[in-house]
């Protein structure tokens, strides 16, 4: 049977339910604290956007399939099965109103990891044909073209030529046996070529050998955003094949949120075996170089800077201290927003939301939460390490008439590299 169906969706729910999911559903007290932690609720006051409520169809399947009471009720014909219509109604809650940011998971008093469950629920939603159109399109492009934005190798090569001209440095393609194979998000390739230029400059100064694979340069993974593990695995496998082919020591995930989650944490589990190479985030690499004394900077940013922790890198990824140590090198006046760090508020655009045109208005509306955080510090520059956050932050700041430049941490470091006297 091909094509989406309710049956496939429900089967996927059943596959995805594990001991943590059962423990979470067993424990939920309907206390509503997750709503208070979710910007999609706080900025809309719509109770249907309560994080645990977004999981209701999954919870019903858990109850009806994996509990004695639920099974008995089902056998007696006394339970309401999950319908296709219901999944259709939940599409907006699961995809438009959730970025998988995981703030709810930090706050739940009984310890429910709600974002973990949303990720699993999406497997069933997608299999049942209830993923958003925009995200389906991005996923198709990612699989067939190699990039959700449709960026092909020639476009990359064109960008590379420009960067090489501007920097006078080589961007090595398909180099074997190097320290790092760098991935790039389509967003960075198209909108922020300064990032790749920054890599070239920093690696040159630090004496790091690196390369980009022409066969697998895309960092993003629509598969984990839409929630289809086999598609996500296919996208990861391309990177694994390239890394193995080029015999690199490590793969660097760029300034992109979910890309890090996809390759660092989900990757080996998707393809079914551990990697032969390491996976690191660019901030981890830079911090390591800093520690080894191989990263030499000069001068400081004098404007007041603050840092936005991208959810998938910080809270869900574990890269929290590195950006602060790096900012310490190049920021004269650094302030933390309230609740910065592991409790940072999501920008509102991750987890596939920015690929979903239907969610545009909502995404900009919930930016208010970010605005409140920013208003508290009155910064003059906002630094982050995710290109998707960056684009959305810029849009949001413009929407709310806030004059605040958004900077990439890697790019800012590169701007302060000490001149090579050689």
């Amino acid at each position: 049977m091909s094509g989406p169906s309710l049956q496939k969706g429900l089967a996927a729910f059943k596959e995805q339910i594990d001991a943590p999911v059962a423990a979470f559903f067993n424990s939920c007290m309907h206390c509503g604290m997750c709503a208070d932690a979710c910007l999609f609720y706080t900025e809309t006051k719509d109770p249907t956007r309560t994080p645990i409520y977004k999981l209701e169809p999954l919870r019903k399947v858990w109850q009806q399939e994996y509990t004695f009471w639920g099974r008995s009720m089902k056998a007696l014909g006394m339970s309401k099965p999950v319908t296709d219509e219901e999944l259709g109604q939940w599409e907006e809650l699961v995809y438009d109103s959730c970025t998988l940011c995981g703030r709810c998971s930090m706050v739940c008093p009984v310890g429910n990891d709600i974002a973990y469950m949303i990720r699993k629920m999406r497997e069933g939603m997608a299999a049942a044909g209830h993923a958003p159109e925009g995200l389906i399109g991005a996923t198709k492009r990612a699989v067939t073209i190699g990039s959700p934005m449709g960026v092909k190798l020639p476009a990359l090569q064109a960008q590379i030529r420009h960067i090489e001209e501007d920097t006078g440095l080589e961007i090595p393609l398909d180099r074997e046996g190097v320290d790092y194979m760098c991935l790039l998000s389509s967003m960075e390739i198209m909108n922020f070529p300064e990032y790749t230029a920054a890599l070239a400059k920093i690696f040159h100064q630090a004496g790091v050998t690196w390369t980009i694979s022409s066969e697998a340069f895309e960092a993003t993974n629509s598969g984990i955003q839409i929630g289809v593990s086999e598609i996500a695995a296919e996208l990861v496998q391309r990177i694994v094949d390239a890394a193995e082919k080029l015999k690199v020591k490590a793969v660097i995930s760029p300034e992109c949120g979910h890309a890090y989650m996809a390759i660092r944490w989900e990757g080996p589990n998707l393809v079914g075996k551990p990697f032969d190479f390491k996976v690191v985030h660019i901030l981890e690499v830079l911090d390591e170089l800093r520690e080894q004394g191989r990263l030499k900077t000069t001068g400081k940013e004098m404007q007041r800077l603050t840092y936005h922790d991208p959810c998938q890198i910080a809270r869900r990824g574990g890269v929290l201290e590195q950006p602060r140590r790096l900012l310490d090198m190049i920021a004269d006046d650094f302030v933390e927003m309230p609740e910065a760090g592991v409790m940072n508020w999501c920008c509102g655009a991750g987890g596939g939301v920015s690929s979903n045109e239907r969610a545009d208005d909502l995404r900009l509306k919930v930016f208010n939460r970010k605005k409140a955080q920013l208003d508290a510090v009155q910064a003059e520059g906002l630094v982050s390490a995710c290109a998707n956050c960056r684009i959305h932050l810029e849009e949001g700041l413009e929407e709310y008439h806030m004059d605040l430049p958004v900077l990439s941490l890697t790019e800012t470091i590169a701007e302060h590299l000490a001149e090579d006297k050689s």
Partner: protein
Amino acid sequence: MSKDETLGEALRRQGVTRRGFLKFCAATASMMALPPSMVPVIAAALESARRPSVIWLSFQECTGCTESLTRSHSPTVEGLIFDSISLDYHHTLQAASGSAAEAARETAMEENHGKYILVVDGSIPTDNPGYSTIAGISNRDMLEDAAKGAAAIVSVGTCAAFGGIPAAKPNPTGAVSVSDLVHDKPIINVPGCPPIPVVITGVLAHYLTFGTIPELDDLKRPKAYYGKSIHDRCYRRPFYDKGLFAETFDDEGARKGWCLYKLGCKGPTTYNACATVKWNEGTSFPIESGHPCLGCSEPGFWDGGSFYRAISTPTEDLSKAAVYAVGAGAVAGVALGAMNRAKKQKSVDAHEKVTIDDLDKEK
């Protein structure tokens, strides 16, 4: 004493002064919570009371009730009254015995048919009538026979009132209470193991005075004596309220007279007059002597969990139940858990691959 002697005549003959008599009436009135104006009424009624016929039947009992009533350090008016009314037939006390005694009983029942008071102590075995007989007559037969002509029945002691200790699990004799067998006569239960002596005579005094049965609670006990719990009248109550308990019979708390709740006192759920009227002419009662109340005036006190375990503890073995439940739960849980795993594995095995062509629903 002659049959036609009034109670007043009988008491005077035995040297009770008018003053002493009135003191007794006043005490009786106050114990029954009657106003002082009732004292002359009681006095007049008792003075002229014709000695009512009382038949006292002792069945499956330990004789403690009779002992309680007759034990006194010095003759009391209660005792004298008792003496004056109970001579028609008292199995234990009467002078005559054998067939003569039975003849006396039958005569009394006949002559006073419909008017005599039947007092019963001891439970009645229903299993095998041979367990308890008097002159070859089973307790059950004798009770049924005697109840027919009784004006009222007084079940003295917890055995007669509720079955008592003979009825304790597994109740080998099939012991039952009077109320279990007699349903068509007024019954007054005077429980206690044994009851307080003055309670027994107080009930009789009420009947003699008013010719009616005192107000009874839903266990047929006179409210005048059984209307308040031990707990509500216990002098150690302040310690309970503060949470100061004796832990053992001889620890510091016990010596300080702290509450005996932890040692199993059933005061909170027991109704009797022990805490106020006390025993041995007001000398003491169990709690005052340092022993927890057994709850002996309540039905089922014999099977209500240990005398030395507090009311808050279970009466059955919970640990065993819990252990069995853990075992059964483990078996059921593992089975259901295995079913869960199998179902999940089945879904995993039957996984239909989702490709990019399988994402679009015809919307």
